[in-house]
């Protein structure tokens, strides 16, 4: 989407508007109700996860279904180290643990065809859940842990900080030589290999970086739970939601996953009570299918298309934006 006629640039989305929105959100705890702060915690959480997911999967086209595994690992880091260490260290530990796990998974699967990666990440969360459950029950004879809890305002600001770091890293990566290498992998991996990109290393590192933010998010959100066990920590939905949000929003640009996250978090908020939960998931799935069918570049791609038509731009965007 680095076109001259990018509608985001022309409509002030480039720097001004994000800054205003950011400031409005940053002071929310001062003027918003506690309900709004809680709602925004989920907005911030899903934005972070969706942006982090896009760092790797958006650029390369490799679909990662392991977000929940890294997020859950972060939750467990909070449970194990939360009492003995300052919170900020625990966040680093959760991020580092996820980085290591992602690096291992990447080293195992990313040197092979892309499909193995999707296959392997698909069951990772089930594996972690089962092994931890077994470990707690037979080796440690405990069931679950308590987590140090923090106030909603504290969680809010930690998440806001994490989101900011995630977006800055994602932006810096996409503008660097490294991001260019990543993009070339997404366009044509074989060609990228031939022009001298160390394809496997770039993929593994990027996957690990994106997982770091997911782990850190898990640590922060754990303090909202007070009690955790493997079933609570490793919820497959956490893998699926970011993928859907990013796809729906559009992955050509960082605004895509953010917009997708806002829309779906809000939908979830109004629809996930009682029996409506099943309807929410049903809608969720249907929207994903329709988006993939008709808007493979997300609503952002749709807006760009409409903008082009409105401005009568002649040049068509290239295949992947």
């Amino acid at each position: 989407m680095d076109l001259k006629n990018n509608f985001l640039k022309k409509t002030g989305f480039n720097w001004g508007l994000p800054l205003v929105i950011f400031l409005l959100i940053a002071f929310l705890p001062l003027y918003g109700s506690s309900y709004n702060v809680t709602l925004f915690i989920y907005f911030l959480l899903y934005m972070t996860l969706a942006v982090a997911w896009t760092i790797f999967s958006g650029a390369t086209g490799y679909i990662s279904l392991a977000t929940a595994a890294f997020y859950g690992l972060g939750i467990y880091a909070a449970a194990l180290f939360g009492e003995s260490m300052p919170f900020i260290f625990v966040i680093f530990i959760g991020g580092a643990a996820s980085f290591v796990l992602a690096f291992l998974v990447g080293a195992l699967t990313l040197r092979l065809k892309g499909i193995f990666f999707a296959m392997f990440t698909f069951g990772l969360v089930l594996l972690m859940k089962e092994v931890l459950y077994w470990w707690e029950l037979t080796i440690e004879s405990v069931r679950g842990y308590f987590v140090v809890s923090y106030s909603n305002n504290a969680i809010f600001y930690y998440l806001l900080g994490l989101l900011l770091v995630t977006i800055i890293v994602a932006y810096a990566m996409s503008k660097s030589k490294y991001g260019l290498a990543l993009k070339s992998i997404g366009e044509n991996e074989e060609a990228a290999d031939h022009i001298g990109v160390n394809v496997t290393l770039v993929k593994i590192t990027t996957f690990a970086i994106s997982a770091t933010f997911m782990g850190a998010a898990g640590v922060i959100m754990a303090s909202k739970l007070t009690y955790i066990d493997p079933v609570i920590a490793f919820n497959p939905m956490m893998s699926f939601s970011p993928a859907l949000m990013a796809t729906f929003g559009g992955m050509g640009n960082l605004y895509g996953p953010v917009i997708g996250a806002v829309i779906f978090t809000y939908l979830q908020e109004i629809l996930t009570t009682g029996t409506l939960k099943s309807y929410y998931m049903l809608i969720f799935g249907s929207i994903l299918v329709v988006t993939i069918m008709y808007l493979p570049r997300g609503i952002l791609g749709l807006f760009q298309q409409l903008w082009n038509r409105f401005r009568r731009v002649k040049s068509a965007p290239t295949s992947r934006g």
Partner: protein
Amino acid sequence: MEELLNIILGGLLIGGIYSLISMGMSLQYGVAKVLNIAHGEFLMFGAFITFAMQQAGINPLLTIIVVGPTMFIAGFILYRTVFTTIRVRSPNPGVFEGNGLLAAFGLYFVVQNIAVLIWGSTPYSYRYLTTSWDVGGADIFANRLVAALFAIAIGVLFYLFLKSTRSGKAIRASAQDAPTAGLMGVNINFVLSLCFGFGAAMAGIAGSLFSLCYAINTTMGLQQTLLAIVIVTLGGLGSIPGSFIGGFILGIIGTAVSYWQPGLVVASYYVIFVILLLVRPKGLMGK
């Protein structure tokens, strides 16, 4: 010794159902190029159709006659509408694989939650052919034996269909190189839809047979999909005979592990997965 016999017999019996699930997935990925994350949901739906008909007084084995074609038609229509649209709009096969996966993912939610809305999320079971025989100290349950024999028969029939009919030849040609097969006069959209339909039918029938032996619930699909993924990798991506044999191997391993540590079955699948990826990613019979 008795335990070993129990494990091997038990593994072979459940292996028949595993083979059927995996052959379906192998067909869908090998030919239609969709890694169907929703595969286990078709199995679950088949199981529930059988359950509903059994409750109405119909012999559960007869329900296969309904489940198979219903699932086939559902799979066929899905591929013809959803996946063909995605395939045509994707600039290259790699993009189709990624987008197809995401769409399958959406289907997973749709199918599972339709089932939850109809049947809730409590487990159901019924009793059918619960007699058992003692073979050298190991128990063989009649329902598991019947399920395994049906699964094997369907697997073998399908293999013969692939090897000896004209449509089977078209499927094999499309598996090797879909665009070229299209140039040779194969109606490619039809054949790919056919494969997806057959895959869905196999999953559905596997579900019917599964419900003969075990309790079913609407959230059981995910684990079955994972199982099928490991077996398909074990047998070799896209290899039908590989998936058939892989089903029995994983059946035995799974049964053995659940004798020793029932909490580590998924972990044992992953151990196999990791070893395969490290040593032989193309699987036992892959090319």
